[in-house]
């Protein structure tokens, strides 16, 4: 697809690379209260950058985004079953 006002893909790539480096360094931090939220936020930001800009979801038909989200929603029963079953096993 052709995108008007194309984003700076090089800048997005640099952001992804820097976030990967930061994630790696944060993984050595001992305080879980700092480490866990930082790693989750960085991973979510990286995923969104790839989805929205590299995969053009920001500029493309919303239907494609709904299809992607449908996959996440369809997985909710799996997560619920796991949450129910896990206390029985642990």
């Amino acid at each position, binding site marked *: *697809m*052709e995108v008007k006002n*194309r984003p700076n*893909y*090089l800048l*997005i*790539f640099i952001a*992804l*690379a820097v976030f*990967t*480096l930061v*994630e*790696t360094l*944060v*993984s050595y931090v001992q305080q879980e209260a700092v*480490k*866990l939220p930082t*790693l*989750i936020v*960085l*991973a979510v930001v*990286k*995923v969104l950058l*790839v*989805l929205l800009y*590299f*995969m053009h979801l920001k500029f493309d038909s919303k*239907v*494609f985004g709904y*299809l*992607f989200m*449908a*996959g*996440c929603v*369809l*997985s909710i029963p*799996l*997560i619920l079953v*796991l949450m129910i079953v*896990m206390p029985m*096993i*642990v």
Partner: protein
Amino acid sequence: MSEMHMQETAPVAQQENTKLGIWVFLGGEVVFFISLILLIAFTRLTHTDYDAQFREHLSIPIIALNTFVLVTSSYFVVRALEAISYKGDQKGLRNNMLMIIVLGLIFLGGQAFEWSELFAAGVDLGNTYGSPFFTVTGLHGTHVFVGILWAVYLLFGHRRMPFTKENHLGIENFGLYWHFVDIVWIILFTIIYLI
């Protein structure tokens, strides 16, 4: 709608249908990989000795480098699409596709190295942590391998009908798949190696 009008619009609609098909496929892949991620999460939450028994065998710097390689390959996918869709640059497309293949192979090489190190340390498919680890990273690696085969086909097997500025949906669809594989790795990297 007249027959002539249908003939004029059909190729465009067909192209959009192909892209829709890729997104439907990726939606299914989301369910598939979330179930695999849950497998890892389940193993970690039900075994308290994860760090001592398994995590200490993982080489985070090497895998961080491998993650960088895959992220870089995603950037080359964008460059390949830019080259053909905005400039009609066949050479640019070829060079970027070649880089994607090389980086994909480097990623698989890094994974093979990691696996050999784990096998040497006694972590194998029969191990409590090895079993889900090799299943999940192996299935992701298989997706990377399929992506490489797809890229090789686009680079060498598609020469009879070369991509043009107007007709480059094949590259765009491949790109969507490759970026998705990259997204999955970003999540796996965080869950398996960093947290």
